């Protein structure tokens, strides 16, 4: 790898295509998986460490990183082709990423009070899978989850790693208001609602942690690449922690 322009020798493990006239998508694969996710994370981290003039922001997803740019700035006020300019600016970062070691992950524990009023669909999920509610909780807390991306709502994690034995269909009629902190299952996915929103997930519990903290420097508790574990807590612990979380956040 000693020769000049070595990036040209590296087989392209990504695709580049536009999303409109002010964003470019870097795609690292066609399927959701750990290898693709690792590339997504590495590239996002490199670009954020070395932003180019005219870089606006980036959005990592399952297989892609979308990079928003200002065409006026990257083209030097119209002297160059904006799309080609942004590709030229990204290539060194892509090369850098190629040689990067795997990034460390944080492990975040999310306390959840399962069942009862806070998890009204725990019984349904149990019956649907011919398990007891205790077994559902055991399987839900046993797995280690990977946050692939944040989207849909502020701080909402798209996670992989749920045990298929506790999967459940969405509710036929979505609830008009799912409370903030609700932990749900939809298909083979599990997630936590950061805000009170309408939603069709089966709710198995509720967490006192705030996933969206708009007045903190890092407003999302979780970020892409984090590992997550759910920890079962009692209703007393839930109430106590809820109080503390709200006091420290605002």
């Amino acid at each position, binding site marked *: 790898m000693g020769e000049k322009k070595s990036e040209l020798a590296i087989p392209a493990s990504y695709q580049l295509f536009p*999303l409109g006239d002010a964003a470019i998508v870097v795609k690292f694969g066609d399927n959701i998986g750990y290898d693709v996710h690792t590339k997504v994370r590495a590239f996002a981290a490199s670009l954020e460490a070395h932003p180019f003039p005219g870089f606006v922001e980036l959005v990592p997803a399952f297989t892609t990183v979308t990079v928003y740019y200002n065409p006026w700035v990257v083209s030097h006020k119209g002297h160059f082709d904006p799309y080609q300019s942004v590709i030229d600016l990204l290539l060194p970062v892509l090369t850098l990423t190629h040689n990067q070691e795997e990034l460390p992950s944080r492990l975040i524990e999310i306390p959840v009070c399962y069942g009862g009023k806070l998890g009204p669909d725990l019984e349904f999920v149990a019956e649907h899978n011919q398990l007891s509610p205790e077994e559902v909780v055991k399987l839900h807390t046993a797995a280690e989850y990977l946050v692939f*991306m944040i989207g849909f709502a502020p701080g909402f994690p798209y996670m992989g790693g749920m045990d298929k034995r506790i999967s459940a269909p969405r509710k036929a009629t979505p609830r008009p208001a799912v409370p903030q902190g609700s932990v749900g299952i939809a298909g083979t996915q599990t997630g936590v609602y950061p805000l009170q929103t309408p939603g069709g997930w089966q709710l198995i519990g509720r967490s006192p942690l705030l996933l969206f903290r708009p007045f903190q420097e890092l407003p999302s508790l979780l970020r892409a690449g984090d590992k997550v574990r759910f920890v079962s807590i009692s209703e007393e612990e839930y109430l106590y922690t809820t109080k503390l979380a709200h006091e420290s956040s605002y």
Partner: protein
Amino acid sequence: MSLHIEKSGLQATIQDLGRFGHQKEGIIVSGPMDRVALRMANLLVGNPEHAAVIETVAPGPAIRFQKDTLIALTGADLSPAIAGVPVKMNRPVLVRQHALLEFGAPRAGVYTYLAVAGSFDLPQVLGSLATYLRAGIGGFGGRALQTGDVLPLGQAPAGFTSLLRTVPETAAFTPATWTPDHSLFPVHQEQPKLRAVRGPEYDLLTSNSKGYLWSEKYQITRQADRMGYHLYGTPLAMAAPAELISSAVTFGTIQVPSEGNPIVLMADHQTTGGYPRIAQVITADLTHLAQTGPGKLITFEEVTLQEAQQHYLQQELNLEIMKKGIELKRLFT
């Protein structure tokens, strides 16, 4: 120095150019529906282009000025009047203490922008004053303006405060006799033809649907708000059922859910989505789309990415020329 909201209107919010840098955390950009109009309103009163303004739809709010204030109105024409006298848009207007600004019947467009010299003295959330209604953050208490709100103003730029002493005190307001050259800002059409580029999933459309997209008229339905404009027309179909992996979407993304009626995502769009992104309205035409309301018909015209970016650059150049022109004007006041 403040503005008093004497009547709330349907939905008036504080918006700056947007909350950038947090989409990776699922936090939407928000900001104005018509970015050109917001930037122009700010330029006319000597503010930085991205500063916070009031965005409103009809029926608009009634706003009392506690002090002499320099303002500009851009975007939709909602028949603005001060002390009952119609006030011209797209120019600086000096409003006298205690005067009341009201809006009447919408004549053209949907979203109006009111910039005040000095903008608003409100706390930023995550680097922006844009109102994010669903999360309840930004702007004025994270919500739309309500009757009784008092909005504190920031410090007006120095050049404009001297202007305040040079105009007659008898009138409730004094408009500038000039406006930026009309070739420099968008002129909206009743039935706009919106230019668009192909989206990442364009090729999933059937060949018939590709034809419909670039030829059929689509009506903006009543389900048209800051999040997105739902369209109604010849349904668009995918050649095969597409199971898509969620990825980023942006302002102007045209998505097609399974029933086939397209949705164009607007200022309050989610950060990511899973529907096919068949096309993307070019940035330069988002101002036209935003100002076209429910019931109106639109068509899409395909352009290349290069053409789209040329139009983008031309729009930036126009705003740059406008900015320079206004600076020249200030030399003579």
